[in-house]
Structure formats: C-alpha cells, structure tokens
C-alpha cells in the first residue's frame, strides 16, 4: 500500500486512539458486573467482593490489543499461511494422490490394531466417523443443492428409532435394519420435502428447524411407542456375521473370540463397530462423489446457482430438491441406525438442535460442498473439545474462539473452491479454438 502524505498520519493515530478508547470503555462496562463484582461467601454469610484491579487489568489489555490490531490491519491481516492447494479444491496428480489415498486408508484400517488404541481412542474415532458421514449426508442438501436445513438431526433420529423399535419389538438384526432405517428416513425426508420445498432461504431454514424440534418432541411424548424420555434400551448389537461379541454365547453357540481363538476382550466389539462405520462412511463417500458427477448432482448444483435458469432448461425443481432432501435424509438415517447399534440405548437427548447445529457447522466450516473439508472440519469439531479437556471449564470458550478465528481467516470454509464434476479434453481446441476479439 502506498503511504499517504505525512500530514495524514496524525489523523490516523487519533482515530486509532479513539477506537481503542471505545473498546476499552466497552470492556469496562461489561467487565464490572461480570468480573469486577464477585459473590463472596467465605464467612458463612454472603457478601460482595470488589476486584477493581481485575477490571483495570482487562481494560488496559483490551486498549493495547486494539491499538496493536489497528496498526497491523486487524485480525484478518494476521491470517496464518494455508497451503495454496487448499484454496482451489485439492487437486493432486495421480501418483501422489494414489499413494496418499492408500496411506490414509491403510492408517484408517490399521488404527484399531495399534497398541495405543484403547477404548477411548477407538470410541472417539467412531464418533468422528459418524459425524463425517452425517456431514457428507447433509452436504448433499446444504452444500450441493443449497437448501439450508437446520433440522437434519430429525433424520438421524428417525434412523436410530427405526432400528431401536425393529430390534426391541421384532428382534430384527442390525444388517437387515440398516437399509430399512435408510428407507424410513428417506421417506420422512420426502414427506417433509413436499410442503416446504416451495420455501427458500431463511424460511426453509426456520421450517426445517421446527421440523427437527417436532420430531424430537414426538419422540419425547409418544411414550407408548418410543418410551418417552426413558428412550429405548436393549437394542441389539451388531454381530460379526452372526457371531456375537461376548464372553459366552447365549445358547451355547460360538462367539467371535472363540472362533478366532482369541481371549475375550470388549475391545473386539468396539473395533468391529469402528470397521462398520468406516465401511459405511467410505460407502457414503463413494456414493456422494458418484452422485456429484451424475446429471442429478449437477442439477443440484445448478439449482443452488440459479433456480429460474433451471426451469428454463426444463428441469423440474421440485423433483430435484426432493431427491436431494431424501438422499441426504437416507444417509442421516443410516448413520442413525449405526448410532443406535453402537450405543445400545437411545433417547431424545441425543437428537437435540445442538446436534443439528454441529453437523451444519461441520459442513459450513469445511467449505460448502467439499468432501475433504467435511473430514477436516469433523476432526476439528470432534477433536477440539477433547483436546480442550485440559482447559476444563474454559473448554467451550476455547472451542468458540477457534470457530470465530477460523471463520475470520477462512470465510469460505477450511477448503473453499470447487473442483468441476467433469473436465473437457481441450487438446483438440486449444490450437484452433477461435478467440473472440475483446
């Protein structure tokens, strides 16, 4: 930037001082009730203790920080360096990308066998993969089709309860219930879709938000069917091709550990669950990336870009939105089914709005429509609160600040930019292609 004439400088300094002063004043006003006054009950009776030195300290810190920020061009100017490849959608050349994919897959498969992988690590990895799967599912609706859905957790719940009910009432096993749960959630997605898809933007968001809450409240109050707040317990656990994970088989059959001659360990079941969700997530990845390259995927993105143009091209917006809604719902349902199987117990507690918000945050933070972004964002959102355990009570504060900083530094999400669904071979045209004169 060219520096202005020297006579401008005092004006700028003056302004920086004023800004810093305002920030300090705001801090003063806010910090007096929150930090300056403290309820003191040391002598058995309640009293107020004043801590002016805390307030003063904070005011000085804010004043100086604001001045420094002003001089350095604000937080946005401090942005850390990100690899440039991330900006335009990650595109690696075949040999490197194949090796990288093989490496990641290998690591993912070997993970439960690693010596450090205990109950806690495997559990964390499993819930990370659930969120990745949910993120990829919601990505179809929000990232590709551009329909803001704040009630995605409803489909997650639908899948979970479908399996819970089928398992406890009819004794249906996980593998049969899995497609049924997906189907149930997809149907629910359709049912919701019909009335709301005329809505756009903010209105759609509000209605889906309400829908998510309605489902939760139904689950909470329809006690005869759903068990109300007590939820459903005793849900069947997935078996290893019919072999249960148990110390002894219920009616004298073989168990997983007996068949392989291993000493029984509860870790086996956890590792198996991990492999199941890994397989489901990889399937989701393959499914959604294929969809993106099909006409329907391009139609979703076209709809996000311009609905009126879609109509002019003879696309039926209702059908396209419904497919996005129901396929997204289906993936949510599959994840829900797995969740029920993993927990063995489900209740409306697990399907609150904050769950929807986290899944949406994963999609937005990752960079709308980007598959790899979802993985990184899920790692951040699942991992950060865990890492933050050492901060104990400040954990959520650190988490919130990290979110704000990411959005300041990378407003388009961690990986913004989109890679085309198809590339034309231009070798034929580059040479002879007529250039249009400017």
């Amino acid at each position: 930037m060219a520096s202005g004439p020297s006579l401008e400088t005092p004006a700028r300094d003056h302004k920086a001082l004023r800004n810093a002063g305002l920030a300090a004043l705001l801090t003063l006003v806010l910090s007096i009730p929150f930090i300056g006054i403290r309820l003191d009950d040391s002598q058995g009776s309640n009293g107020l203790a004043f801590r002016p030195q805390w307030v003063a300290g904070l005011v000085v810190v804010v004043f100086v920080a604001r001045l420094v920020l002003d001089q350095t061009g604000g937080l946005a100017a401090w942005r850390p360096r990100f690899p440039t490849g991330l900006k335009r959608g990650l595109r690696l050349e075949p040999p490197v990308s194949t090796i990288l994919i093989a490496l990641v897959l290998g690591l993912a498969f070997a993970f439960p066998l690693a010596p450090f992988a205990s109950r806690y690590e495997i559990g964390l990895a499993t819930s990370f993969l659930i969120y990745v799967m949910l993120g990829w599912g919601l990505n179809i609706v929000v990232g590709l089709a551009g329909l803001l859905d704040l009630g995605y957790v409803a489909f997650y719940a639908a899948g979970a309860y479908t399996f819970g009910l089928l398992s406890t009432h009819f004794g249906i096993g996980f593998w049969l219930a899995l497609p049924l749960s997906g189907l149930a959630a997809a149907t629910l997605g359709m049912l919701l879709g019909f009335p709301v898809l005329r809505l756009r933007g903010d209105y759609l968001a509000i209605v889906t938000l309400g829908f998510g809450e309605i489902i939760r409240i139904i689950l909470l109050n329809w006690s005869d069917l759903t068990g109300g707040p007590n939820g459903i317990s005793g849900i069947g656990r997935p078996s290893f091709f019919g072999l249960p994970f148990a110390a002894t088989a219920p009616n004298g059959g073989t168990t997983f550990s007996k068949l392989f001659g291993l000493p029984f360990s509860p870790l086996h079941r956890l590792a198996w669950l991990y492999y199941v969700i890994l397989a489901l997530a990889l399937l989701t990845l393959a499914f959604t990336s294929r969809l993106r390259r099909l006409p329907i995927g391009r139609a979703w993105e076209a709809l996000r870009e311009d609905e009126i143009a879609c109509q002019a091209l003879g696309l039926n917006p209702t059908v396209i939105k419904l497919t996005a809604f129901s396929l997204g719902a289906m993936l949510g349902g599959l994840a829900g089914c797995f969740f029920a199987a993993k927990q063995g117990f489900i209740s409306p507690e697990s399907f609150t709005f904050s769950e929807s918000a986290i899944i949406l945050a994963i999609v937005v933070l990752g960079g709308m429509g980007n598959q790899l972004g979802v993985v990184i964002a899920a790692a951040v959102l699942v991992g950060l609160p865990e890492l933050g355990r050492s901060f104990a009570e400040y954990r959520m504060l650190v988490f919130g600040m990290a979110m704000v900083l990411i959005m300041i530094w990378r407003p388009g999400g961690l990986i913004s930019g989109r890679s085309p669904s198809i590339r034309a071979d231009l070798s034929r045209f580059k040479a002879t292609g007529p250039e249009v004169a400017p």
Partner: protein
Amino acid sequence: MSAMIAGGPVLAVRGLSMRFGGILAIDNLDFSAKTGEVTAVIGPNGAGKTTAFNCVTGFYKPTGGEITIGDEAGTLRIDRLPGHKIVSRARIARTFQNIRLFAGMTALENLLVAQHQALSGGGLLQLQGLVGLPAYRAAEQAAVEKAMGWLDRMGLAARANDEAGTLPYGLQRRLEIARAMCLDPRFLCLDEPAAGLNPRESAGLGADLRRLTEEDGIGVLLIEHDMSVVMNVSDKIVVLDYGRKIAEGTPREIRDNPKVIAAYLGEASGEAAARAKPTERPPARALLDIKRLNAGYGKVEVLHDLDLTVNQGEIVTLLGANGAGKSTLLRSLFGKPRPSSGEVMFGGRSIIGLPAHEVARLGIAHAPEGRRIMPKMTVLENLQIGAHLSDPRAFQADADKVFALFPRLAERRKQRAGTMSGGEQQMLAIGRALMQRPSLLLLDEPSLGLAPLVIKLIFDAIRDINETDGITILLVEQNATQALGIADRGYVLQTGRVVHAGPASTLLDMPEIRGAYLEGLGAAT
C-alpha cells in the same frame, strides 16, 4: 440439426393478455413467428416485451388468450403446459435479460445441465451411471461431444473448463445461447442478448443469429434495444407500446413508421453526437487525479499503471470493451478492490485506503452498473437511503430537485422500486446518488438495456446535472456515440490501460475508435 424448410412449425400468439393486479401488462396481443426467421419484439421499457416472453416460455400463465405451436403433426397449447415441460414438449428455449448462468460451474457443466433430460433417461440411465455401467458413459460421452460442439461454434471451446462466472461479459452472453441450443429447440427466445455488448460484439452476435436461423433452421424471437442488431438481422419486427402491438412489419417498414418513431425510436439516434458540444471551459483544477494506479482481484491484475484526471465541472467518459477495467476503476475508488499501488487524489487529498463510506462522505457518489436500487422499498425510501449522509433538513429540497429532473419518479414516489421499468429504475439510481449531494458523480453504464427514447432522456438529465448543478461526472458507457456527445473529454481503456485520451470531439473523429466502438451504429438510422 437438418435445416427446416419454410412452412415448418409456427409459434402463434392470439389475443394474449396478462394482468398483474390492476395493471394490464399485455393487452390482446397477436403475433406469430416462423422457424428459419428472426422475429424481433421491440418497444419502450415497460411495454410488456419481457412479459410476453415469459408467457411464451411458460414462466407466466397468461390471464387470457392462447399461445400455440403448430406443425404437420398438430398444434400444441403452450399456455396449458407446466413450466418445465415447455422445453421438452414445445421445444422452446430462452435466455435472460440479466444473464442467468450457473456462475460457479464450468462452461461445460452449464451445457450438461441443459442436457439433463437426455442424460438422466427418466432416472434409469442415472442408476446405471451410479453403478458405472457403460450405457451411461456412452450417453455422457455423447452429451459432452454435443456440448463441445456448441462451445466451439460460439468460440468458447478453449474456455470449457472455466467457471462461467469468470468469463468476460460478452462470452457469458454467448455461453447462455450455447446452453439454450443444447436443448435442441425449435424456437429460441433471446431477451436483450446485445445489452452491454460493444458494437463489434453486437455485430458478431447478429451474424451468429443469422446462422442459427439459416443453417440450423431455428426460429429466433428477439427482444433488443440495439437497433443495429434488430434492423440487420430481423425478418419481421413487432413493436409493442403499453402492452399493445402498435406496428408489425419488415425492418424497412418499421424504420419509417411514424407511430414507432414517436413511441420508441425518437429522433434519429446518431443525432446526439452531432449536437453542439459543450463549449470549451477554462482549464480547471483537477477534482479527481489518478496516477499509476494498479488494482485487481486476488492475483488477477485488472488495472495497470493507469493515469486519469477529471477536472472540476467536467463530464469525462470512460470507454472500452467489456472487461477492459472500467467498472473496476470506479470500484477501486471505494477501495473494492483495494489498489495495490498508485495514487488517487480527490479534491487534493489522498483517498487510497479510506473505507468506502468515508469516500462517499467526501463527496463521491456512485450509480453502479445494474442500478442496484432497493427493489422492495419505495422510490421515496430509496431516495432517503441516498440522503442518509446529508443534512436531513435539506431532504425535501433535494428530493424535489430529483423529481424536477425526473418527473416520472415524482408520479411514482410511493411505488415499490422493483416494480418500475428499467428506465425508471435507472433514473432512481441516479436520483439516489444525487441525494448524497456529491461533487463527483460516477455513472456506470446508465444506458444499459434502455430504449432509445429513454437513453436520450437519461443523457439529457446527465448534461443537466452537470450544467445547472455543476456536478462533475465520470461516465462509463458502451454507448460511445451518446457518451462522447455529452462529454468534454474521454478515455479509452483496453485491458486495464489507457490507450487513447483526449477531447470528446477528437475521439469521435479518430478512425480507430470509430472502428472499435462506434462501428455499426450508423446502421441504426
């Protein structure tokens, strides 16, 4: 794509009426169009041209009358079809006045979306694609071939993998036509395809349209204000005014029709240039002084070492092809994009690095390209927005001044701005900028998409603002003849550099400028 002989399908509109609330936008309209011909629909802004198009392409359901497409096989009532079926059943495709591409997708992807029906095969083909069967891959290959064929024909093949939104304006217009052609239409409805193109690009467009009708046997329906295009390519012209047809005939008949001249063409449009130019003013001090300015978006540098001066009281016009950097220059004054180097002095002080609202406070007002009025607010509310920086006590007087300048706005002060015609919206955009009491007014393509008569009105107003209020004006225009007609001086930009600069009269006479920017305008009259 075999050429159809005359006597092919006919698109017929009979007794068409369209009513919005109390307003009759189209009143008992009859016209027909044949394949292999260009049928132009012209008329003042707000005459109902786009409304008629929206009825034909199924975006509106007409309140009366019928629209049919008929060939040997029988006739089909278009107005009874659901919107998305018009393309597949009636095979009518369209483009939009304000380009509607899928901006974030590549050019090729845009053309593949247009082939959705063929590629999805009722969903069955897609299922095969999902599991990777060869039938889908073959269909996709064919679709890509077809798309690349059209891209090649429109001169876009080399840009197939570029995002549509990053293409220059002229190419976006061509891409939209290519996309519509991928639908294999019998009729193609183009809504102001030449808007925002310079004369050379317009001439290229005219040639493309002739080729579509003559080689591909397509019927083209064309709404256009650029008379050089309309007169050169049309087989038949239909003229609308206040929703009624006032004339129909060949270009020659229309050109000499007194009714059309009164309602639409006005005086011969080359006349503005011939009008007496403003007298030479004594050299004044520079109000805006730009030196060695460099600016761009991200890594793309748009302006290179640009020097430009606007003196107090002048009208200076900035000409150049689409993508030359004219709008970028105006925006960079407000720091968006922020200049990477150079100097911008306004009234003797540097404005580089100032936030946009402070630049506005110093007295620079901007009536941006595309008007950017607040569509859901009334005319008066829009003016209030413009006035929020100035003294509230002066509001009434300032508003009255705007209303005196544009009496049409006074009649509509309580009307929602978005429901007004394009010309009225442009008046409002200028009026809103004036409410800021600027000393420098930046106007970005005020004539874009306007009828000749309205353009004249707007340019008269610009001259009036300059002469009576002494407001200095920097005017970006495609309409070079008109702009140079009222300007004192002009600059011609090419790829972000000034290639010509000088008094307006000198520029008007320069052969290379006539060639690049004025060519074809003579054909209008």
